[in-house]
């Protein structure tokens, strides 16, 4: 095929250019796959490999390491040194199981709390006059303009014994003694809800704003009270937004490290924190990697669920 063929498609070449279009499409689809391969699968393989290794006091702190110069034999030797010891260890020490369960609990509760707070916010935004909506949306996104870390640190100032919150509550006379909030689970919930609220509000808003008001009119016209029509029309139709928001909050909350570390107490164990300790304090990279791999599989489950839900929703909305 020559350049002329490409630049002047005639009837005879239309078939050929059809296959060319196929090639272009394949290439276009391939780009995200290549991206995933390089930036997701490769690190995953590396972490997985480390999780099968043994810890040593060396640099890097695991064994075996693979040296290209040893060639095929070296590779085989490395494979033979692999074992599932670290995974077995994770089941033996209850610390890991407890961290997983505690993370699950904290992530679930804070996702629910975020939903309960986010839904009314998104709902009132969607019901607000058209000219206000852009501003309200800006306000929801505004916190992102400050570093996440700084915002979490700022909560220390609010939640600590001599903090703004206690000061305010004492001043209004609601409490007589300052509350201990900082370094408790409550502080973690507050931190997570605060940090991830926009991830809940945005998908909910997107769904609620698109909701056809004539559906609500039709429901009330057929004798359904406005409150009931919320339950039978608005809520079911906003389910895709609820799902999206919950997963967007739940998944990062499950592996959250910064918030429990900064706001939580020493008694709170979360898998992200455990992982950090294994990695940096104990320098036990293999166990840390095993924790990370298990966490990943734990997260894949809700993601797959999410995908399924999305597919179902796509079908309905088509």
């Amino acid at each position, binding site marked *: 095929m020559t350049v002329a063929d490409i630049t002047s498609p005639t009837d005879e070449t239309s078939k050929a250019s059809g296959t060319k279009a196929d090639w272009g499409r394949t290439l276009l689809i391939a780009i995200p796959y290549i991206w995933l391969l390089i930036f997701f699968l490769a690190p995953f393989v590396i972490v997985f490999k480390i999780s099968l290794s043994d810890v040593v006091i060396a640099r890097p702190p695991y064994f075996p390491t693979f040296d290209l110069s040893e060639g095929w034999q070296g590779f085989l030797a490395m494979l033979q040194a692999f074992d599932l010891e670290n995974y077995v260890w994770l089941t033996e020490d209850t610390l890991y199981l407890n961290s997983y369960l505690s993370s699950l609990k904290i992530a679930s509760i804070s996702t629910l709390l975020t939903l309960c707070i986010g839904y009314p916010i998104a709902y009132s935004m969607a019901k607000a006059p058209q000219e206000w909506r852009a501003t309200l949306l800006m306000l929801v996104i505004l916190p992102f303009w400050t570093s996440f870390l700084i915002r979490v640190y700022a909560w220390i100032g609010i939640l600590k014994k001599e903090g703004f919150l206690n000061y305010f509550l004492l001043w209004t006379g609601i409490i007589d003694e300052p509350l201990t909030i900082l370094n408790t689970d409550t502080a973690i919930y507050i931190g997570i809800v605060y940090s991830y609220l926009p991830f809940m509000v945005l998908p909910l808003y997107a769904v609620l704003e698109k909701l056809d008001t004539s559906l609500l009119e*039709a429901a009330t016209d*057929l*004798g359904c009270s*406005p409150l009931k029509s919320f339950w039978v029309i608005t809520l*079911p*139709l906003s389910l895709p937004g609820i799902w999206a928001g919950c997963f967007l909050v739940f998944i990062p909350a499950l592996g959250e490290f910064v918030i429990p570390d900064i706001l939580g107490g020493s008694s709170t164990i979360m898998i992200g924190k455990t992982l950090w300790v294994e990695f940096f304090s104990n320098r036990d990279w293999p166990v840390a990697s095993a924790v990370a791999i298990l966490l990943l599989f734990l997260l894949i489950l809700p993601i797959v669920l999410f995908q399924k839900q999305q597919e179902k929703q796509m079908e*309905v909305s088509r």
Partner: protein
Amino acid sequence: METSVLTQPVCKFAPWDNPAQKPLVRFENVTKKFGDFTAIENLTLNIYEREFFALLGPSGCGKTTMMRMLAGFEYPTTGNIALANTNLQKAPPHKRPVNMMFQSYALFPHMSVEQNIAFGLKQEKTSKAEIKQRVEEMLSLVQLEPFAKRKPHQLSGGQKQRVALARSLAKKPKLLLLDEPLGALDKKLREQTQFELMNIQEQLGLTFVIVTHDQEEAMTVASRIAVMDHGKIVQVATPAEIYEYPNSRYSADFIGDVNIIEGKIDVTTGETASLNWAEGETPLKVSTKQRPNHGTTCWLAVRPEKLRISKEKPENADNCIKGEVWDIGYTGNISTYHVKASNGSILKAQVSNREHLADRPITWEDTVYIHWEKGAGVFLEN
């Protein structure tokens, strides 16, 4: 089609002529504004029980707005709407004995056809068995039994429209508002559904208000028609009255085909007015009870099928216009002759095709005479 549906009630149903009759719906000087825009202007209208009332008018004239005020989604800016003598000013939509079929259908996308239809019934604690029976009844009415389990997005446009119709009918409300209920249906199904609607309305003694763009449909189903223009009602009358005696050029033109001839009054003698319509032509005569002054501009409206056309000059016809055949529109059962008069205006005359095409004597560019009785035309002052 069953013959029973075709027979119209013989006894005269005309509660609007009876001053003792209380209207079911009463619009009193209703004005509705959206910001600066006046959608409905000082409208007064009575709709009686058991009526099949049609709203007819061009797009954007306020038909849906009137419906929405009746259903309770909009409130009049000024004026009052009463339903069966209760003031509806404050009643919320879900407390009104009114159901509406939306122009946009507004089907619940997450519910099946069945659930959509059952929705209204479920709100009023109807027993399960009765709901089931009523839903089946409605499904068979709109011929959607095989689609009961489908979701709205799996239906065609016409099928969706039928679901919307079934859903609004299911509760058999005292007053049913139908906003273009049959627009998306093919001709045959539409006609069938029209008769079904009339049947239901009659059997259950309900009151229907229907919006339609199809004047033929309005003529078929309605007991009375309101012709609307820009938020005002131009004429309210029975289909026959509107057709035979339109009160203005607007309603004459809106319903059916019509020739409108502009002229100035020559003389008015007895119940006949003469109209000078073109220089050098004999004035046209038309029966009227009005006594307009000499020289006022008026109009004569006459339906194409009331005109006769011949090649020879007719003797002692009330009105006769000589012209040339400009065009012939052939639609199978009838032919429409477009005849150009001396002043250049085109008159339409309809003739039913009794003979075969080849046997018909009049053809293009023939000189012909169009004639009609003075009683066939309608005298219009605006």
